[in-house]
């Protein structure tokens, strides 16, 4: 996936479209060409991990905290941003949460997505490097692409190039009886399978970490995430068992306690994150790192 660059053109790292060197965004998929430039300088294959999930499942918050944790050298990981823009996402998330606000919705417009490129070193007996590239995708764009393929071709390109995937599923909604998270996850895996182009009976080989978010609503999810999925996300559970060669379930939570504020004018209710209590943020990434270095 290493990008190529010549004096007259720069190939997009995501869709391989040749672009003029002076451009900021790929003319085809609107991915930042800065990624391609940095990759070319690095001379090392970057690792693309795509985080997927329905709208409002918590992708931005999860990704922001994960990248922030990695850049603070948690456990054996040391992460360094490869560009100033890579810090936008964690800064956006941490700053909003510090003000007891969830960050705003990610817009559908592709040129307004946050792309992060971090160089991650896993210390140990043998140092392992991962050049992590991950975009913060809006759930609506993912849903639109799944419903009508080629609406946002960049998502197809991302899936084709991703070394690993994280599929976020709203555990709180599922536990409260909504079938929407289960159906969305089922559609998502079906779409991933279709994009992988495997033969009949061939399983999806890409490692997929299925992250059950907002698990603070349902603490029992932390005790046994696969069992929770089997009980509350049965369609997803069976799909994973049948079609995924390398998948694992995780529970995660960001919010320690949640308040609810009512607006005086229209009586709408806004959830207020009173404090953060991170749990299960790093484990999915640790698992992915182990899969990649096998």
């Amino acid at each position, binding site marked *: 996936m290493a990008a190529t660059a010549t004096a007259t053109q720069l190939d997009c790292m995501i869709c391989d479209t040749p672009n003029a060197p002076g451009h900021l965004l790929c003319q085809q998929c609107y991915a930042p060409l800065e990624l391609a430039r940095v990759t070319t300088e690095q001379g090392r294959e970057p690792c693309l991990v795509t985080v997927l999930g329905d709208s409002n499942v918590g992708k931005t918050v999860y990704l922001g905290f994960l990248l922030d944790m990695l850049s603070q050298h948690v456990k054996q990981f040391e992460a360094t941003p490869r560009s100033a823009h890579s810090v936008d996402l964690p800064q956006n998330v941490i700053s909003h949460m510090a003000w007891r606000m969830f960050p705003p*919705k990610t817009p559908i417009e592709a040129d307004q997505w946050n792309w992060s490129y971090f160089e991650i070193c896993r210390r140990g007996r043998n140092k392992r490097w991962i050049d992590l590239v991950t975009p913060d995708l809006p759930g609506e764009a993912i849903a639109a692409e799944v419903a009508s393929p080629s609406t946002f071709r960049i998502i197809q390109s991302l899936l084709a190039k991703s070394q690993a995937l994280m599929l976020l599923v709203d555990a709180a909604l599922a536990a409260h009886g909504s079938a929407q998270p289960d159906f969305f996850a089922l559609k998502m895996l079906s779409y991933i399978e279709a994009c992988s182009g495997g033969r009949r009976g061939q399983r999806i080989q890409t490692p997929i970490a299925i992250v059950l978010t907002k698990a603070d609503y349902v603490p029992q999810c932390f005790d046994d995430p696969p069992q929770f999925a089997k009980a509350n996300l049965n369609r997803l559970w069976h799909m994973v068992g049948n079609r995924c060669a390398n998948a694992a379930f995780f529970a995660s939570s960001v919010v320690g306690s949640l308040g609810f504020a009512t607006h005086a004018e229209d009586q709408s209710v806004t959830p207020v994150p009173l404090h953060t209590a991170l749990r299960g943020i790093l484990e999915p990434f640790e698992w992915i790192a182990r899969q990649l270095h096998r």
Partner: protein
Amino acid sequence: MDRQAVAPLRRPPVTADLIEQAVFTSIRSPMARGYRIVAASRGITDDEKREIVQRAPSHGNLEQEGPEAEALAGFLLRSGRYCLLQARHAGRESSNRGGLRVHTHVVMLSRELFLREFAGNPLRLAIFAAPALEESVQRVEGPLLAALAPPETPEWGEPGATECSANSISAPGAVLGLASALLNREAVLVINASAAAAVLQDVFAVTPAGLRPEIGFAFGLKPSVQRSLPLLFHDAEPRGLEGFLRDQGHRLVDWSGEAAQRIASDPYAPWLDFAQRRWEQGRLGEVRALCDRLEEEIAPEALALDAALAVDLEALEEVDAAGLEQLRTKWSTATATGPVSRALLVSVRERIEARLAAITPEVEADAQSS
């Protein structure tokens, strides 16, 4: 079953005669949440819906942040139909993560219907669609919308009006510089235009109807590569648009600064010169009325011919017999292919003969008396 009692099937309405509509916004429903097409009429294809999703503004993409923010965008879809997006803020966004919900009402119609009923002017289409927009903001009941019937008797002002548009606040030179760029297929980004709709109205007043649908435009929306249309209006500072301008190739025009220059060796120069003279005489309405009729005559040569005919049709009322003879010679062998130029040519020839017939007895009488 009594076959005679079965009523004959009604012929379904021809899709090309209807105006399709859709709503793109973020509301919670049993099936989904977030920004998507929440309602649409039957005649919108999957490809057209895909394109609407790609172009319509999502969260935080109206240029103004307040509840009164509005936006308008119009462009041709890949299917060939014309699409108009009207967007505004409509209360809080359903996920309650801050910010207002962007509500976009979409109307879509065939190019032929757009030219026939609205003379290709998207601002007229916006006026027509305004009640449907208001209704959709109040409530969206169910995923299926009815298509709209075109207006029965469209009234967009008196044809041949001699007064300038009341909205014309722009200097002719500035608008014609903009029109010159757009007619020559150059993309333009305009900043510091306090009334984008008025500028757009003036641009379309000097643009033949047949070319108006080709001029995709947007105002009131944040810059995005997914809406890189030929004519964009933004409030942003030039510094913030550098990357967009470099990537998309738009020419930057500061409406508060020096007027945009016309394209060098502009093939549309005769037409634009004619429009400028009429405008400066306070007769922009006549130019608009003429442009409303120009569905087929859109090539520079055809427009130059129409301009010359319009000028001479007026001038021949003032010239003497010798001048009339010159005009007769000039237009005797001219050919016109478009309906408007053919009509103008017939008018010029008839008027020349009528004036000559009226003048000649007077000349003979003067000669006899002297």
